[in-house]
């Protein structure tokens, strides 16, 4: 499991643990002390990212789930999630 973390808006921590096999995301856990309403949006993002190629547009995938759920993320953005995944995979 590779991981990376960063401080995001409001000093919140975003930590992502990710497993990749043959260029596919196999397991991803998005963790930290940020807020997301509704909370299960994050679980949906984790599920949706699973089996995606690492060079696909992950930010777009994340943003679409946020929009679909009419979710509000406080202290973390789709861009942050995308960038921290990529950092973890470096």
């Amino acid at each position, binding site marked *: 499991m590779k991981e990376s973390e960063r401080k995001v*808006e409001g000093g919140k921590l975003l930590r992502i643990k990710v497993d990749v096999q043959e260029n596919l995301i196999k397991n991803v856990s998005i963790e*930290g*002390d940020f*807020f*997301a309403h509704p*909370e299960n949006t994050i679980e949906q993002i984790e599920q949706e990212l699973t089996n995606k190629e690492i060079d696909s547009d992950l930010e777009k995938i994340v943003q679409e789930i946020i929009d679909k759920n009419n979710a509000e993320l406080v*202290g973390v953005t789709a861009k942050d999630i995308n960038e921290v995944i990529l950092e973890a995979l470096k």
Partner: protein
Amino acid sequence: MKWRVIELHENDAFFHMAMDEAVSEAVAQNKSPPTIRFWTWKPSAVSIGYFQSLKDEVDDSKTKELGVDIVRRRTGGGAVYHDNLGEITYSIIAPENMFPKNIIESYKEICGYLINAFDSLGIKSEFRPINDIIVNGKKISGNAQTRRNKILLQHGTILYTVDWEKMFSMLKVGKEKMSDKVMQHVKDLVTSVKDVNPDITQKQLFEALKNSFTQGKEFETGSWTEEELTRAKQLAEEKYSTKEWNYKK
């Protein structure tokens, strides 16, 4: 709309998390009025935010040794040590349309009740977005909110006194145990009511909180319903006290 106020009561971490959810459900179904309750944790407990990894945040062998519970909250935010005697926690549960739609604005409004309570005790405090209240630049209260089924739940803790050694023995910073340097750093970042004014009693703090939370509201002092209690016991047993929930990350 008439509010229900449930005065200071103690219970364990699993029950409290379950009661917040049970009351939220009852308010959503129009079976219960909007509710404010004040409570303490018995036994002491560590709560972690919904998205946190338990193992990254808490030394669970140390909590076990000290008889301290660990519970995952249904709200985001960080890990907090809730000492049985060291704090007062509140929950406010109401239809979300009674508060600003904007999340930060709603934090600001509810945290305003805390600031007024501190004010009445002669303590000058301020709101630090996203979800903290600070005194002299140090955190004295952390707050966490969720909204589900058009119901807003915000719970938060007010530090009355801090047992630094105990707190540092259980919480991890990042993935490391706290070093002396980190401990000093946290002491510079966190304060408590007793720290600011040792003469204030916990009862005075509770009264100040109750007065400020209810100011301008029509309210009745009451308790939970039988239905809420039954549901809370079920949620405590089937969700909040389980490994599946608490160790899911």
